[in-house]
């Protein structure tokens, strides 16, 4: 047992009042970082409890998506003629960021309702919950990245210094996903049917993102495509992973960054505004 701590009359007084915005919110989030770590670790641990199955699950979806897109966009739509690298590798380099984004978005959107039992029993800054779900998306991503690396070397494309910027691109994908995820998870607490919207959004997004093609190949729609925040992210990933194939398009990256930041700031605002009522309606 620890030594008896002396009661300190100078301890700060916490004041709870209706509508009082938490002055130390961000300090509290920082104070609960270990909880964030534990929740993330719990999710990863449960998902990879049976290691082999966990890895297989993480790989099945991207492999199948890559296979189908290679067939449809490569063979049927003849996109492969316009790409110098093996088309399946090209597709996988787009599936990789998409997978990260879609896992992060769907996990974070479902997170509050999925942890309702915690929210109604314990206080902590609720932001910890959607944040902690990003871990599983990252671990799944790492598994697929290893597969990509093996394939890439197999096809004779070796990583160069562009790879060093991969973390920045990952952050950008997470920024967009978390921004949208915060909106969706807070809205799902109030409106339970939002949970049906997420898979729909992701399905539409899968086809409106340049995964099986390059935005330049759809010149008439390029401007429209750039409005999808994932366009810049996928482009950025390709620049890192396939340096000879794709030039860096700063405009698209900037659009993604601005949209990501906008989503995140808006999402944080809405999340904070509704957070105090979560326990009453969840």
């Amino acid at each position, binding site marked *: *047992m*620890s030594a*008896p*701590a002396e*009661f300190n*009359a100078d*301890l*700060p*007084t*916490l*004041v*709870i*009042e*209706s*509508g*009082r915005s938490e002055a130390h919110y961000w300090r509290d989030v920082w104070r609960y970082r*270990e*909880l964030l*770590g*534990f*929740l993330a670790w*719990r999710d990863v*641990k*449960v998902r990879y*409890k049976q290691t082999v199955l966990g890895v297989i699950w993480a790989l099945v979806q991207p492999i199948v998506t890559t296979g189908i897109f290679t067939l449809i966009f490569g063979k049927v739509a003849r996109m492969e003629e316009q790409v110098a690298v093996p088309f399946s590798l090209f597709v996988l380099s787009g599936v990789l960021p998409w997978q990260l984004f879609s896992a992060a978005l769907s996990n974070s959107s479902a997170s509050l309702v999925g942890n*309702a*039992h*915690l*929210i*109604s*029993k*314990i*206080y*902590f800054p609720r932001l910890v919950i959607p944040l902690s779900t990003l871990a599983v998306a990252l671990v799944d991503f790492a598994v697929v990245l290893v597969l990509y690396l093996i394939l890439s070397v197999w096809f004779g494309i070796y990583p160069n210094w562009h790879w060093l910027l991969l973390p920045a691109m990952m952050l950008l994908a997470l920024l967009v996903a978390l921004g949208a995820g915060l909106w969706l998870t807070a809205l799902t607490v*109030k*409106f*339970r*049917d*939002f949970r049906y919207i997420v898979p729909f959004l992701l399905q539409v997004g899968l086809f409106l993102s340049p995964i099986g093609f390059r935005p330049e190949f759809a010149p008439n729609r390029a401007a429209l495509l750039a409005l999808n925040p994932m366009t810049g992210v996928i482009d950025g990933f390709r620049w890192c992973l396939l340096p000879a194939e794709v030039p860096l398009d700063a405009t698209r990256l900037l659009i993604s960054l601005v949209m990501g930041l906008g989503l995140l700031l808006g999402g944080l605002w809405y999340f904070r505004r509704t957070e*105090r*009522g979560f*326990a*009453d309606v*969840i």
Partner: protein
Amino acid sequence: MAADTVISVEGVSKRYQLGTGTRHDTLRDTLMHRLRGLLGRNRAAGGERDFWALRDLNFEIKRGEVVGVIGRNGAGKSTLLKVLSRITEPTSGRIGIRGRVASLLEVGTGFHPELSGRENIFLNGAILGMSRAEITRKFDEIVAFAEVERFLDTPVKHYSSGMYVRLAFAVAAHLEPEILIVDEVLAVGDAAFQQKCLGRMQSVVESRGQTIFFVSHNLKAVEHFCTRGLLLEAGQLTMDAPARTVVAEYLRKNAVRTGKARRQLSDEMDLEELSFEPATATLREPVTFTLTLRARQEALIHDFHFFIHNSFDDRSAVIDLRRGEGSRTLAAGRQLRITGRIPRINLVEGGYRIGLCLRTSRHFGVYPDLTSLQVAAGPAPDGFLPIPPEYQGTALIDYTFDDRVS
């Protein structure tokens, strides 16, 4: 706030809206409602009812006090704890809290059935507000306290309920915040272990001047453990006095309720019916019971029993409802109906409260005081006055005897 005040509550109220027609759980409903409003066909306007769970509470708690909150179901006890724990905010009023608060509103909050005992200690500790270093430092002590050394690396879904509860309590008992807020959780677990927990909390109070805020149906625990009692009735504080006095007043006021119970147990289960017939049973006569649950979402039931408490809230008996492999799976919307019979009700005459313990893969729910049962004395042997219930001891045994004078 005075120097030794750790909690001050000033004019705190909490309102819930029991919406009929104004609160919407789905966007679809909200949109339809707006649409109807636009078309001028909104009949259900203003059907909203307010429910004041807490009404204008005022009190101060000083350092080192052990405060017991008592009151019937729905009196606002749990809401008060939730407001003090910052889980939900008050509608009006002001609360000042000085010191680190830990709240324990449920046994094993955040326990994950797939994770091992070891992993759950860390997870649960973090959820309750302990740092990793603190948990590591107290780990051996927690394990020894819970008496689960041999099963540390077994997933907790394979634990018996007793082990599960002991592990959960052990983590909680090693919290050392300045203020500890504890709900109903002591209703589970065996008596010896409860004593062990209370003993440990007591020593923390004495050695560190910890303040404890304690809600319980277990009046005996409140009486022995608490220095001060608060009685809540319909959201209002009606009595603030030494614990012993408040318990006596509560016992005097609180007649045993009877009848069917119907309520939401958790976000995965509704209780649709619970009845013991006849509500006033005669000693050693049969009693039948009916329980109907409906799953709101898929639920896997691990443990399942009724517990019967006498008017002093000592546990008198349990009715174990586990079946087969120890688990039942209910798909969303499915109903589980249990009917049973107690051939002879061998309980000392008096009033009994019946509660339900329901552990699923995601919840450990303890729902005391759902319904009640009155047991009346049977006929006394010819011509004698019956023995008063307080002289009858705790168990009714069946016996026969012969006598012969020689």
